[in-house]
């Protein structure tokens, strides 16, 4: 009885998920229907659909997605890995951690948009400058999160290792790293969006490929429909990457859900 009731509830919840989107599309549709001026400014669901169809068939959308995903994922992996290693390693030395703190804060607060032109002039307008921007957008979050994780290891675990005569490396490997994983995973979730943003900003400013490029070009032509098609592609990419991270989380955090 109870299980069937809960299944029903879950089913009802599933039905509710697309509801806000459906409402949004309907409002958009009726607001722009038969009004050329509004359609010029806001485009319309139908036009966006057409643009999606057109760019998918021509291969334009997929190629640009590929470029953006490659840049974002490469920057994300570099930024998150290097950031996590730095953040966790700061556990080793309070002094180094304290000295580097203002620098990390500085790095975290600099708007990536401001750095983008410089980075592009260093790395060129190819994929590398976008990877660098995605890296810069993600590395500080990874450092901060994993350092906090390393510092919030439970005292009783450290005491156990101390009594057991563990070396600092053993404590790091067996206690600090595993208990910080949840923080690193959180950093990863935040960083998906930041990496995409970094890559996108790079493309937006100067590039010949990628979704950022596609969107800039389309908006230059007042082709709002293609702009929205690009935005939708970005959203889908972000959701897909987040899904991948969640799968990894479920695997690593299995002990949490048993």
């Amino acid at each position, binding site marked *: 009885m109870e299980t069937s009731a809960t299944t029903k509830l879950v089913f009802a919840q599933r039905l509710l998920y697309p509801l806000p989107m459906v409402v949004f599309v309907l409002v958009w549709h009726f607001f722009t229907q038969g009004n050329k001026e509004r359609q010029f400014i806001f485009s319309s669901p139908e036009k966006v659909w057409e643009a999606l169809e057109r760019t998918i068939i021509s291969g334009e959308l997929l190629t640009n997605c590929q470029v953006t995903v490659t840049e974002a994922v490469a920057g994300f992996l570099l930024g998150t890995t290097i950031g996590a290693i730095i953040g966790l390693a700061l556990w080793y030395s309070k002094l180094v951690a304290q000295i580097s703190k203002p620098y990390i804060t500085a790095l975290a607060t600099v708007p990536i948009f401001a750095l983008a032109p410089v980075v592009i002039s260093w790395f060129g307008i190819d994929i590398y400058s976008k990877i660098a921007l995605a890296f810069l957008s993600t590395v500080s979050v990874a450092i901060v999160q994993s350092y906090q994780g390393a510092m919030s290891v439970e005292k009783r675990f450290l*005491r156990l290792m101390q009594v*057991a*005569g563990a070396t600092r490396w053993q404590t790091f490997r*067996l206690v600090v790293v595993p208990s910080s994983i949840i923080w690193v995973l959180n950093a990863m979730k935040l960083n998906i969006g930041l990496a995409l943003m970094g890559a996108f900003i790079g493309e937006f400013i100067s590039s010949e490929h990628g979704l950022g490029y596609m969107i800039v070009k389309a908006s230059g032509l007042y082709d709002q429909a293609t702009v929205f098609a690009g935005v939708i592609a970005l959203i889908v990419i972000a959701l897909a990457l987040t899904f991948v991270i969640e799968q990894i989380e479920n695997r690593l955090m299995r002990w949490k859900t048993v």
Partner: protein
Amino acid sequence: MSVSAPLLTIDNLCFDFDGQTEKTVNALELSVKKGEIVCILGASGCGKTTVLNLIAGLLKPKSGSINMHAEAGKKNSIGYIFQSDPLFPWRTVEGNLMLAFDLNKSLDRNRAKETMQQYLSMFHLNSQILTKYPTQLSGGMRQRVSIIQSLMFDPELLLLDEPFSALDYYTKLSLEEEFCQLVKEKNKAAILVTHDIEEAVSMGTRAFIMSGGKLAREFHIKQETQGLDNTRGTEEFAKHYREIWSELKTIISG
């Protein structure tokens, strides 16, 4: 080393936390032999945990000496069992129990597993729990696992800081029994900090009341550790209980 030689001797031990006017531990003396369970009682905040931390090496004495006369070449001669168990939630019970092996790869893996099985049966645990995670265990099971975890390091002296206080009465009784059995069979020594006079009388060979930074009062309870079955409820038991209680009462009420 003769059987009656002490395993641990503490001489004139002093310790204070920085900025404190009164010494938390003040000229404390203690010696513990193998086969003994020494209980320490005392008012909250009198420094019991501090003494254990000093013995375990988590704190450094300001003066005085703590000497372990452990077997030559032994790395972990002291095991420390805390009130809140330090089991890693991301490791299974087996992973937690094999920590000693992970920290010292020169141990033989199969031997370590055998030892683990032995302890499991000694503490009446089914080996099915090995694949479980700590969150899936009851409080009593967790505390048993955490005791076995420290036994896996093969310590000679066990320090216990109110290990059973969070457990229900019956679980507590059986764990006390199992622990006494262990100390006797494996010829270990233990220092047990507790608030529970009954526990001290039924488990301890000796009991101390800590006050003014010292072990101010000593009670001899029995010659050696024995099973609990026949101690509770005897006239002897009641006598020790009354003695300790009257002393503790006057100390606590100041």
